[in-house]
């Protein structure tokens, strides 16, 4: 009897061990790191935005992998959480990601923190694929500092004013506004003339980078900046004036719900014909002209963003952005040469030409692709305006570097509070300035 009990006990113990080993083993087997050296070849990991340019790479990757023997894993995460993921990796000196794809506001900060590499030493190693001088120079500039080049541009954009030519004609407005006062007047005419059914203007109003990005154009149109004499001054007189103007404009003539508009909703409001004007990225052009999703195709005019101060400022503080999303090489990568090869290839002329041909790619950065016939044919209605805006684009449009996120988040919150009438422009911005002082020291 005792023996049976002992045996039973042993059997149970054995069963427990078998079960646990299976479970743990199953877990471990499933965890074999994605793409660990398969057959001795190098694997690189890329953290990317989920965007047409990335889809384009995915389609062409087999060619690259065959040619170079480098295996590439592309991973996408929500744009809004991407920076969190990148920074947690970088701050642990992680080699998880060899290449990250993000915009220059973040990228410059990563470079200052020495999280990403100067690429100059690698340029020659992949010169058969790509070289720095093949890029349209204004697009490369935001990733250059002190003789270093720390990112290769994938797509870029500026901002501009988009307006409905048919509505302007209908209400007898002669051409796009050239001053901020005219802009407000035109918005009023159309809003009141249509009995409120068409908004005078729509802008992104959602907190954070969403509203700050177009708003920074207003800030600069009023002659303001995020800094004064090298010190943070988000509560400057110009900033308060610009914010008040921006909030009044949206409150009086904006569409319903503008306070929650992100890029997408703003774009939809405009392409669905609910607003007469919008100020946003040049990347919106193709969406406006896409007859399958836009009811305003062929009825949109493109112009420079007006100024409130006598324009244009000689200081170079222009009110249109120059924003570039680029590939950055992690300083902690164990396969820097291979990673750079991928970066050079992904931004090469051939790959970019394929993007223009097959996907949505108005922001391509290769000089020869931008000037190609294929590009002109596809983006004819606004190609000239895009190039003009890019030429005057303000490289310092948004704060960049280590403090950028904090500034954008706080100012974005102040804008949202002003628009929501939680606080006056002055109070909201003063509070933001105070918080930023505590936070950034």
């Amino acid at each position, binding site marked *: 009897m*005792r023996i049976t*009990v002992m045996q*039973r*006990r042993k059997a*149970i*113990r054995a069963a*427990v061990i078998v*079960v*646990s080993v299976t*479970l743990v083993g*199953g*877990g*471990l087997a*499933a*965890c*074999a*790191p*994605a*793409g660990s050296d398969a057959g001795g070849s190098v694997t690189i*990991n890329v*953290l990317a*935005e*989920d*965007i*047409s340019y990335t*889809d384009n790479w*995915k389609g062409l990757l087999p060619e690259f992998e065959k040619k170079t023997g480098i295996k590439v*894993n592309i*991973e*996408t*995460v*929500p*744009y*809004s*959480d991407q920076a*969190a*993921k990148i920074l*947690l*990796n970088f701050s*642990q000196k*992680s080699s*998880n990601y060899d290449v990250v794809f993000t915009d220059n506001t973040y990228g410059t900060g990563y470079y200052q923190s020495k999280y990403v590499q100067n690429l100059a030493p690698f340029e020659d190693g992949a010169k058969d694929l790509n070289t720095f001088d093949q890029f349209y120079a204004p697009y490369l500039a935001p990733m250059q500092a002190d003789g270093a080049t720390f990112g290769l541009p994938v797509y870029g954009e500026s901002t501009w004013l988009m307006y409905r030519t048919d509505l302007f004609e209908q209400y007898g407005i002669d051409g796009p506004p050239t001053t901020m006062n005219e802009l407000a007047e035109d918005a009023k005419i159309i809003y009141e003339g249509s009995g409120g059914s068409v908004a005078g203007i729509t802008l992104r109003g959602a907190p954070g980078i969403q509203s700050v990005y177009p708003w920074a154009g207003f800030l600069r149109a009023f002659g303001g900046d995020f800094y004064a004499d090298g010190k943070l001054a988000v509560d400057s007189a110009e900033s308060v004036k610009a914010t008040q103007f921006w909030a009044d404009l949206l409150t009086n003539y904006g569409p319903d719900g503008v306070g929650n508009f992100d*890029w*997408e909703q703003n774009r*939809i409001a405009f392409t*669905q014909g609910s607003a007469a004007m919008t100020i946003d*990225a040049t*990347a919106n052009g193709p*969406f406006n002209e896409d007859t*399958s*999703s836009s009811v305003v195709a062929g009825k949109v005019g493109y112009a420079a963003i007006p100024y409130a101060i006598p324009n244009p400022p000689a200081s170079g503080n222009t009110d249109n952005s120059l924003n570039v999303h680029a590939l950055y090489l992690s300083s902690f990568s164990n396969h820097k040469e291979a990673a750079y090869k991928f970066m050079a290839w992904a931004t090469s002329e051939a790959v970019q030409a394929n993007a223009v041909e097959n996907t*949505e790619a108005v922001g391509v950065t290769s000089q020869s692709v931008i000037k190609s016939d294929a590009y002109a044919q596809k983006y004819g209605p606004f190609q000239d305006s895009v190039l003009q805006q890019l030429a005057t684009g303000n490289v310092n449009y948004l704060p960049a570097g280590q403090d950028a996120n904090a500034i954008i988040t706080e100012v974005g919150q102040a804008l949202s509070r002003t628009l929501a009438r939680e606080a006056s422009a002055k109070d909201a911005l003063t509070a933001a300035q105070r918080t930023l002082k505590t936070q950034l020291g």
Partner: protein
Amino acid sequence: MKTRRPVLHILRIAGVYAFVMWCILPLAWLVSTSLKSDVDAFSRVPIWFFAPEFGSYVNAWVDGGMGQAMIASATVAIVSSLLGIFAGLPLAYLTTQVWPAEAPGSARFTLGILLLTTVPPVLSLTPFYRTFFGVGLTGNPVGLTIIHTFYAILLAVLIFRSFLVSFPREIREAAMIDGLGEWGALLRTILPNVWGATFATFVLALIQSWNEFLYALLLTSGDSQTVPVTIAGFLSFFGTNWARLTAAGVIGALPIVIFAILVRKHMARGLSFGGVK
């Protein structure tokens, strides 16, 4: 309770149906959006009749990596739920059968477990990430499985405890006298009586793990990315493909919805940690 007045009876049934409509109509809309083209989906006036397009589903499954994500989610969810039961059941047994449930220590212990569930994930995210990163448990499903197991254990202890509190202790004592030992007593006398609870725990732990977003976002990558992270990944700064996003939402929710419906008989008791029988 029978209502004698027919008007009240009809009102009552109408109320129930109205509530069920309120629950499922938004989901019907989600499914219909996933079958529309982008133009139709964003039309100001809803389009009631349209030719369904299944392209978004194919797109989400193949290009969007939903297939891969489902495998990753299923692996993490199943392993963590099983481990949660394996670790939670003996602990619940220890605090109800070995130590009497009426003892102050046992109550305090249960309270402690319950309160552990109140700690918000945003707090423990960074500590976990850093430590796990240091020992190579990020970027693969292992780290995430460990954390989900942690939550599964808490769930399992609370559910099993509620079942075992009223389980007569004499049975265990008899088994001990038979020389089965604690594990033997647990597996041979207790387990056969709590299959229902085990099943409920498994399903609830599975749902909890399947839906979890924050830890999954930071601890997994590439092939190990789970369903919610992959779905949210379709939200990009420019040009979110809504049909694909909604299609992915439907695909991702489907297995868990089916599972929940299949086992709904055990849900109430499990969900209330045995608060109702």
